[in-house]
């Protein structure tokens, strides 16, 4: 899972995104899968591992962008895992909440690093675009559960 997420992390860096510097965030679908169908510790481990390995492979380790993605991914794993226990939401709802928490934390870290709140002006558009990623990630996570479930 770490390998798949890391490869997606690097590959999506070359996929065009309407906001400069932004990414679609498809590498988070396995973090969502583990949050929804496994334990928080698994989701957290994957969030940390894929951020580290993906950024090493793309040459962006320990850059400001790395820290934004790293903490965003951890926040998504935490919020998704906690809410998955409540059974209040389906996989799409968890994905949507993960996307929102990921982006809020990323922009918060970014604003601290840049020392300006101007970065928040991009947040609404990134979240609108992120809704499509949330749908795609929810579908991929459900399909992963189906495939792994069939194998067991």
């Amino acid at each position, binding site marked *: 899972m770490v390998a798949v997420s890391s490869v997606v992390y690097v590959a999506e860096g070359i996929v065009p995104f309407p906001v*400069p510097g932004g990414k679609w965030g498809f590498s988070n679908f396995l973090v969502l899968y583990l949050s929804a169908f496994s334990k928080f510790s698994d989701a957290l481990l994957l969030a940390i591992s894929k951020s580290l390995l993906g950024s090493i492979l793309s040459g962006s380790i320990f850059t400001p962008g790395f820290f934004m993605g790293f903490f965003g991914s951890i926040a998504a794993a935490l919020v998704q895992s906690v809410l998955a226990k409540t059974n209040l939401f389906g996989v799409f709802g968890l994905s949507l909440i993960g996307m929102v928490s990921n982006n809020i934390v990323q922009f918060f870290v970014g604003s601290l690093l840049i020392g300006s709140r101007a970065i928040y002006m991009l947040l609404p*558009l990134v979240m609108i675009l992120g809704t499509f990623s949330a749908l795609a990630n929810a579908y991929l996570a459900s399909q992963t559960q189906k495939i792994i479930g069939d194998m067991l």
Partner: protein
Amino acid sequence: MFDLAERRGKVFLSKNDVLLLLIVFVVTSTLYIWSVWVKNANTSYSKGIVVRVGGEEIFKIEEAGEWQIKNRDGKYLTTLHFDGEKVWVTESDCPDKICEKTGRAGPGGSIICVPNRMIIEFKKITDSDQGVDIETW
């Protein structure tokens, strides 16, 4: 379709998900419209440019022209252009080139370079700039 997910108590889409989607859509769309309005309502911005690195102001531009921006240590960061109305970047030392891809920014807009922790934005007009010395209310 997602039978195994359902067996584990996880449906793909629940009523709460639809409600949540609606809330996210309304909130983000409203904030997006507001951000575009703020960007276009440029009355609170002057024609001067400010460059900040890590929150610290390192360069001010009042006139049209081309400038090479360096940080406090003298390291080259970016080449900036200002035509008196809009600001844009033509060259940068960072690998992402996000600042170059951002294009031309007008009053209310900004150019952000995350790798260099740099922000280029129009200077806001403060009360002192407007010559307001005292307010009676």
